């Protein structure tokens, strides 16, 4: 191979692979190799272009890329872009080094991407969209849609960065990214703190006699702390999920059953 490094950029195959690097996940998902087939599909335009005339080489390369791969889908473009640049060099064992990098980075990238894009991203933007929808407004959804567009361009850029600068772009910025994740966590936690009293609702029908007047238990509890019962319930569920007994699904069924029981007994 005598390709000059960097000459792929701007070609049809490069653009195709870039778009596939965004979409790849569901094209491969399986219990054995997770996202690996999706990654093969992701690299196919570039590998076909570079090695289409050497079927044995291409087969061996694909064979390697079919091995286990699982990372955060939003950071895959950077790994794919980097793989493209390594494959382009055409050096004999380039697939070996690209695969080593892919395997080495998929864990850290999954941790970083999951906490930034999924956990904190959904906490902030999912909460706002859900909250505003319940108040009857789709504005929160529109904010999310703008974010989808922004993330599309961000991922295109990730692919270019991976191709031109390699993955060092991320690995050298670990501290900045960690600070960014922690900053996002601050927003996420504040939003959850606000969501618990505004979005969890539970009221009892219990009343009790106080001097001559009867008061509702809720009214009394809420003078101690607004939304007392929602806060208490969230705390109990949080504690419950920390034990080995409760999986998420079990917790959901437990809540449903307890609510129906409370409804039968008539205290809520």
């Amino acid at each position, binding site marked *: 191979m005598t390709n000059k490094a960097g000459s792929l950029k701007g070609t049809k195959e490069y653009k195709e692979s870039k778009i596939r690097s*965004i*979409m790849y996940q*569901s094209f491969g998902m*399986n*219990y*054995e190799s*997770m996202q690996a*087939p999706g990654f093969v*599909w992701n690299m*196919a335009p570039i590998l*076909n272009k570079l090695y289409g005339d050497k*079927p*044995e080489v291409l*087969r061996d390369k694909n*064979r390697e890329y*079919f091995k286990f791969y699982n990372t955060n889908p*939003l950071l895959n473009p950077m790994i794919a872009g980097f793989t493209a640049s390594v494959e382009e060099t055409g050096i004999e064992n380039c697939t070996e080094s690209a695969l080593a990098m892919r395997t080495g980075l998929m864990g850290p990238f*999954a941790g970083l991407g999951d*906490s930034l894009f*999924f*956990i*904190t991203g959904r906490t902030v933007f*999912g*909460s706002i969209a859900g*909250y505003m*929808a*319940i108040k*009857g407004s789709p504005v929160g*959804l529109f904010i999310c849609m703008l974010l989808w567009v922004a993330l599309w361009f961000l991922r295109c850029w990730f692919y270019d960065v991976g191709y031109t600068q390699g993955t060092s772009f991320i690995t050298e910025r670990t*501290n900045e990214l960690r*600070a*960014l994740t*922690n900053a*996002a*966590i*601050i*927003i*996420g*936690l*504040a*939003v*959850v*703190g*606000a969501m618990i009293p*505004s979005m969890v*609702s539970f009221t009892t029908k219990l009343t009790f006699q106080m001097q001559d007047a009867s008061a509702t238990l809720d009214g009394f509890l809420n003078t101690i*702390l*607004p939304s007392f019962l*929602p806060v208490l*319930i969230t705390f109990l*569920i*949080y504690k419950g999920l*920390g034990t080995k007994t409760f999986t*998420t*699904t079990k917790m959901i*069924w437990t809540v449903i059953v307890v*609510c*129906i*029981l409370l*409804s039968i007994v008539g205290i809520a």
Partner: protein
Amino acid sequence: MFSVLQIILIMLIWIIYQILSNMFIFCPYGTAVLIGWITGAVLGDPTTGLLVGGTMELMSIGMNPLGGSSVPDYYTGCIVGVAFAIGTHQGMDVGIAVGITVGTLGVQIDVFNKMIGTYFAHKEIEANEKMDFKGVETWIVRRFAACIALTALPVFLVLILGNGVMQTIVNNMPVWLTHGLSLAGGVLPAVGFAILLRSLPIKSNFQYIIFGYVLAAYLQQPVLAVALLALVIAIVYYQNQIKSPAAVTAGSSNGGVQDDE
């Protein structure tokens, strides 16, 4: 309950949604609201759609399929819930109850989807060994089509079979059951929040929960105001951390890791 045209339209929305979200053109923020809203609009009641979609969104925000795990499918729950809330004229409580049940059972859809993925992966590897590279890509695209078909099928079945059955069930539901399920609809977002708190490093950042709580519960501020105020704190925090990078690790553990107590 649903006309043929409505069923076709709902299925069309659902399939387009599945394609776009599985291609990650839609990212998992606000998608339940989108499905709810559009389905509601098609059935003539966008407001109920927004309400059910919003509730489903809140219940799903903690459900992240991290590391290839499977989580309850509140998106399937959402479209089914909206359809039944409007179709049975029982309002959003019934819709949410149906949606929760379908969504919680829906965890199996994802498990099954990954299982059939293995079959396709073997077909792809087989084609690769024969150096049939077109075949490799064809099988990968077929795998994607199977994923879409598999996620679409349950909604289709519920809409067709549920048409009569659901109406009967909903009409004969005792009051204690509908009331209980609507109670659960109010409490279940707490499960979503609790899961989120489990996945965030709250031990060293507890003060921000109190910050948000006080603004919402005592000062009646909407969530967007809370988020913007928290953004101010976050920017200040980020700038301080960048100035002294050595101190970053002291702030909190890395986000994705479980923070036990």
